[in-house]
């Protein structure tokens, strides 16, 4: 019954990831002469040695299973090659399978994969907590607003949500920083831990991180709360107008039971969809929020890579971020499939 739905979604996710891989690959190999030019930046090298280096790095192999080559003249279609596997795309996929994302320019040849795995946990921490807060508070407020319509607080809530929705995430972060960190000095202004601090116990370490986490996480949460509460409010309002809610009233069920058993299970459906759709957009927010607070995560990494033209790093980050979002969407889709029996048939 339901397995076809899940299988289909999984298939789509895999297809999307493959597409991401190919796009990633093409994008970064298509810069004229870039890989070796930048890798060998500044070093003097003879034309022959350059050719040898290119050969060593497989840069003279055909780019794709169709013979598309990259050299000084740009991209050219040469011919259909003898073998389908002797090309850069396949080499790329192979190296990916071994979790080799290349070497960073910026970090003097450190493996991109290493750097990324170092910077990933702080991002997940910030992101995860921000999203969790937003879901709990945003959906909670929204559901409450929808349940008790018509109060003046409803109007205020909607207005506030609209304003929050119109703000760039990071700007809110900057303002919070100015008010609470620079002026009031309640929280530190940058980073994840106080630099050079010596912690007597893990608990102290956790508290220090928590202090640094408050402002950025609040920023992420606030950016989302607006949307979530607006959506939940309208979802609950719509559900309340449905006939089965009237049936529930007619059955003599009490208010909170109706809310819990009938309204919320149905109102959650568009909410889950929104969270899933948002995952792609939050990445933008996370990147810039990290920038504002100098949070040592993938976001700052991306911006630095951009600045220093560290293409392997950018390519690696793009890959990791895109795949994460695709996977997160898959999970959200699965959750939706569990919540709504109608999509399973």
């Amino acid at each position: 019954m339901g397995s076809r739905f899940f299988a289909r979604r999984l298939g789509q996710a895999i297809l999307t990831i493959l597409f991401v891989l190919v796009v990633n690959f093409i994008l970064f190999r298509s810069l004229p002469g870039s890989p070796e030019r930048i890798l060998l930046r500044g070093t003097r090298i003879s034309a022959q040695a350059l050719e040898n280096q290119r050969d060593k790095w497989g840069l003279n192999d055909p780019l794709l299973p169709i013979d598309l080559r990259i050299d000084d003249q740009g991209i050219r279609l040469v011919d259909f090659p003898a073998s389908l596997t002797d090309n850069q795309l396949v080499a790329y996929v192979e190296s990916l399978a071994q979790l080799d994302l290349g070497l960073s320019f910026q970090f003097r040849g450190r493996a991109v994969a290493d750097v990324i795995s170092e910077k990933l946990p702080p991002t997940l921490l910030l992101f995860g907590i921000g999203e969790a807060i937003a879901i709990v508070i945003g959906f909670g407020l929204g559901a409450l607003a929808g349940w008790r319509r018509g109060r003046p607080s409803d109007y205020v809530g909607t207005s506030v949500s609209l304003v929050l929705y119109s703000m760039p995430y990071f700007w809110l972060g900057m303002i919070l920083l100015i008010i609470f960190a620079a002026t009031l000095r309640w929280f530190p202004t940058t980073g994840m831990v106080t630099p050079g601090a010596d912690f007597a116990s893990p608990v102290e370490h956790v508290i220090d991180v928590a202090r640094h986490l408050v402002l950025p996480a609040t920023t992420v949460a606030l950016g989302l709360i607006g949307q979530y509460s607006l959506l939940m409010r309208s979802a609950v309002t719509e559900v309340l107008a449905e006939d089965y809610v009237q049936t529930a009233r007619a059955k003599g069920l009490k208010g909170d039971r109706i809310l819990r058993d009938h309204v919320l299970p149905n109102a959650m459906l568009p909410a889950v969809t929104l969270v899933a759709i948002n995952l792609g957009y939050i990445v933008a927010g996370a990147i810039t929020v990290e920038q504002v607070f100098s949070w040592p995560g993938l976001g700052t990494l991306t911006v630095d890579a951009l600045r220093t033209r560290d293409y392997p790093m950018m390519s690696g980050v793009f890959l990791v971020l895109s795949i994460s979002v695709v996977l997160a969407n898959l999970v959200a889709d699965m959750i939706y499939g569990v919540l709504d029996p109608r999509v399973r048939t």
Partner: protein
Amino acid sequence: MTGEVAAQVFTRRARGERWRIRARQLRGILRQFARQRSGVLGVLIIALFTICALVPDLLVGPFESVTRASGEKFDSPSPTHILGTDELGRDVLNLVVHGARISMAIGLMATIITVAIGAVIGIVAGFNGGRLDTILMRITDFFLILPTFVLALVLAPVLRELLGEGSEFFGIRVTLLVIIVVIGITSWASTARIIRSQTLSIRERAYIDRARAIGASSGHIMRRHILPNVLSLIVANTVLVFAGSVLTETTLSFVGLGDQLAPSWGQILAFAQSSGAPGIGAWWYTASPGIAIVLVVLSFTLVGHALDSILNPKLAGRR
């Protein structure tokens, strides 16, 4: 009158009749719109910023480039500099008013690209159905799921390299052009979806079948019957897309893709960040462009929602 002349007169009169009906509908829409206070407020704010965008020199004088800074560094707001100065001594109000043109122009052009792609794909997919629809929707879904911001982030430098930094196309610097193009080709997916579902519902209507029965071609049907009915939805959607484009541009500029010589509001914020303004509490520098952004995005959102509730047949019944 001979048959031919009569037919011509009839067609011309019919065409005139059509425009009269359209004008009447338009007036009705405007009247409904005027009744929504939020929408009207939005229009007023947009008008204000449009003026800033069109004639900034009239309002605050010429743009203060680095060499023409008029004040002390990081001066807090004072009678001479109502919004204070930046790290180079430039008047922040001056920067913000001139930034209006950049931000809104980028937003406008990116929106045109977004809506053009989205509408075409939406109408073609919705109208044709079948295989084409499935393929187009797969592509659309791909763009919906993908973190388009990251895609924009990686596309931008690649495009910049390809097109050559510092050069100009059609009088627009590459930096700006790249941002416009990148926003355009990554944001069309939700527009395509909305237009497609509207097209689908129109396609089911009787007069499409009638048009087909008398032999009208697909292109003709799409142009003459579907487009006018989808147009209102496109308009409402365009306004919302504009709001989104401004936000995206702000974010892209903030991470370093903006043009430093013609700073948009996002670029001003980038300057603020990199000069350490938040850390030393120079709130005026950070707050001013941000408030401008919020006002513009908010007003377009309000107008877009107001239009949506009037024009979207699904929402028009409920209030």
